């Protein structure tokens, strides 16, 4: 186990190194930050002085070294707009995004598994065919269109749902702001979560169905039937657990992608999370915040993948994390 984590740590370092080089590259080529910072009336001399104090006239490698050195200490630069450390800004926005992704995951899990299993068990049933047909449509509709349609129908036409913002949020454990502690917060998170899950849900239904079909044709399922197990036991004990193995692997990667997709959902719903913040940062050319966001999301990806691998190892007895096989 320690060896598995050690290996993962080395991988994290390598991945973060590549991402940091990429981010630094962006930072360096996105133009002159002093133009954004400085007042219109600033003279060229004053501007050069500012560049010196910011270290922008040093050789590239020195600048990169400084960048990495600070990043290791958790200093990803200071946001031009917020005048605060970029990491602090991101961490403030993090709960909103994670809660949105969490709510979307709950929707995906509770809908895709029963539907996928149903479509595998009764492939000829009209509802299975209907689900498959709808899922194709679901995959092809972009998130922002789903989001706009939801707002149009439920907020504007019917007036049932709030169309933007997080609503009433409650602070817990000092800094974490949650939507799930009040009714107003829950109402506000429903539509963004549905919009965010809409792109992944059809994919997961199809994935669960395909894996389940494969497992159902396996020898051990036939043997379970032969030893007298009833259909429910065969489907939900013997087949489902095996079905979940590949679903977990794919799901782990998809959660990471979903965090990235929040950019679209959050901007449509004015959801004050990392995605919305990133979009604003791009508009304001807030370069330190942009790079900090990219590095943070990269880090999140690696952590989620490690957790998924650990979970996989717990479920599958054939995977021995101790020996790294």
């Amino acid at each position: 186990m320690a060896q598995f984590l050690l290996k993962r740590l080395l991988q994290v370092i390598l991945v973060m190194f590549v991402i940091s080089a990429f981010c630094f590259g962006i930072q360096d080529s996105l133009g002159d930050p002093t133009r954004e910072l400085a007042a219109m009336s600033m003279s060229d001399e004053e501007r050069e002085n500012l560049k010196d104090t910011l270290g922008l006239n040093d050789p590239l490698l020195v600048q990169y070294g400084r960048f990495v050195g600070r990043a290791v200490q958790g200093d990803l630069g200071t946001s031009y707009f917020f005048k605060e450390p970029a990491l602090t800004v991101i961490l403030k926005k993090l709960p909103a995004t994670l809660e949105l992704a969490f709510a979307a995951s709950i929707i995906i899990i509770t809908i895709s598994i029963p539907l996928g299993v149903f479509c595998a068990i009764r492939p000829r049933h009209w509802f299975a065919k209907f689900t498959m047909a709808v899922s194709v449509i679901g995959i092809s509709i972009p998130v922002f269109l789903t989001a706009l349609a939801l707002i149009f129908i439920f907020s504007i036409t019917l007036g049932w749902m709030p169309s933007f913002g997080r609503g009433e949020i409650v602070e817990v454990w000092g800094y974490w702001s949650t939507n799930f502690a009040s009714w107003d917060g829950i109402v506000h998170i429903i539509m963004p979560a549905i919009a965010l899950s809409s792109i992944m849900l059809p994919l997961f239904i199809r994935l669960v169905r395909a894996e389940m079909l494969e497992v159902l044709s396996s020898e051990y399922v036939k043997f379970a039937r032969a030893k007298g197990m009833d259909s429910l036991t065969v489907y939900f004990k013997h087949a489902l657990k095996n079905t979940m193995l590949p679903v977990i692997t794919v799901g782990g990667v998809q959660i990471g992608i979903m965090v990235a997709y929040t950019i679209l959902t959050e901007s449509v719903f004015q959801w004050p999370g990392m995605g919305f913040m990133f979009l604003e940062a791009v508009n304001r050319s807030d370069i330190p915040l942009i790079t900090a966001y990219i590095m943070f999301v990269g880090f999140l990806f690696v952590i989620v993948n490690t957790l998924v691998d650990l979970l996989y190892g717990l479920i599958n007895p054939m995977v021995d994390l101790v020996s790294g096989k």
Partner: protein
Amino acid sequence: MTLLTIKNLSIEFPGRHGTERAVDEVSFDLSPGEILGLVGESGAGKSTIGNGIVQLLSAPGRVSSGDIFLNNTKISTFSSKEIIKIRGSRVGFIFQDPMTSLNPLFTVENQLVETINKNLGIEDRKEASRIAIDLLDQVGIPDPEVRIKQFPHQFSGGMRQRVVIAIALAGDPELLIADEPTTALDVSVQDQILSLIRKLCRERQVGCLLVTHDMGVIASVTDRVAVMYRGKMVEIGKTAELLTSPKHEYTKSLISAVPRSSKKIERFPLVEYIETTAKGLKHIDVKTHWLGQGTRHENIQDLLEIKDLNLSFVTRDAFLKKNRKYLQATSDVNLTVKQGETFGLVGESGSGKSTIARMVAGLQKPDSGSIKFDGVELVDNPDPVAVQQARLQMQMVFQNPYSSLNSRMKVDDIIAEPIQFHRLAPAQEIRTIVGDLLDHVGLGRAAGLKYPHEFSGGQRQRISIARALASRPRLLICDEPTSALDVSVQAQILNLLKDLQDELGLTMLFISHDLPVIRQMCDRVAIMRHGRILETAESEDFFEHPQNEYSIELLGLMPRFDKIYEVEATV
């Protein structure tokens, strides 16, 4: 008193191109404690009968007519709810492959206990667990208290099949249906499992329907045997009688096609009843044909020399080298293959015989040692051209003809590829040569325009052989070339290999776990175990006077078809 009666049973599989009758008007009965063998080649419908009894047919198969009685209860008209009550509690099932018939994610205890819960109606987990441990003990699993907590992948193949048998017996059934229970197992394990099944059937007075394609298995455990051919039962009778004096033509030819382990014969008798080679093939004179004009064979003694060959696989990786665990796949293997002979490598699964073949063919790099082909060193030779020239003269025929041919290529292109790649013949002649090769292996040149899926297993293996011949090899490495094939087809392929060897002066490295086949094919044999060669001998010497203890044991465990057959025949 009869336990199971089957009357005029027909099973159909409706499909797009009409309904296929997998089982056609089959009738037989089975007494308690009796083992009835159902024997036949693939597609004969023998497994379908077993599945049909407990309604486990894969869709859209269905019992179209006939009756099945279990202890005078008609079960063929049972609804799916009623049949679930029969499964496990009155009819136990054993499947072919113990590697896949247990659920990999649940412990053996979990899988046994749920069966006991359901079939014996014991809800108490502790009580069920105690019964489970007792069952594991009965089927011969050591330390059942410890092993029961383990997952299937922690058991060897033979042990898993014992677990499967324990599960099949957990509901205390009256009838046991064993579908090829030992086909996936080694000879020594096969013997243990068969004795176990026999013992349990006798003790518990359980009737057993044993489905198999293996005459050796039939001879060693069954009381009576029914022979199936294309869905019909052609003959049924007492095992000894049926094997010694078969009445039906098909049974006769099937029995004659089984390779004998007792004496060497020149050619295998063919089962003409099933598959004949294409007619009107062009005969080619090998002496003047392209095929016979490869590299001239100088008369060297030893074509292939292997010295101190070592290879180990990492089975447990670790950060520190000393913590790593290795599996020694081959250790200090020495052997020489003489020009023109057939050299057999025998051993059980995991003994390293295929690994040697892979290293000779260059598919795997050895850790240390030397492989010399016609005097050219193949391991770490700095001259890649010499190595390639040598490799060109050795070709491989693989075990599974279903996966060793590219299904997207036409047969013509498959065979032409090595000729084109090595520029062995002028482009305009390649098509003629490919056609001649197809004629020569008994397929006919028309076959070249088809794709591999249009052929049967035996025909595909002929394509593999034609492809191997296309680079005019001197050494043919055959890795279990017939173990995926039916007996009758096996006889044809082995005959073909013998003919080709005679005509072309081929040298063969022949790998098999099947001792009778080895005896029929090989001049010399080496017996392998745990990556070591235990004994190398002239084939006849080996079978008549084995020196090594393990060889003696292995020969004793050989399927006993010939023994019964020969003894009874002389009476």
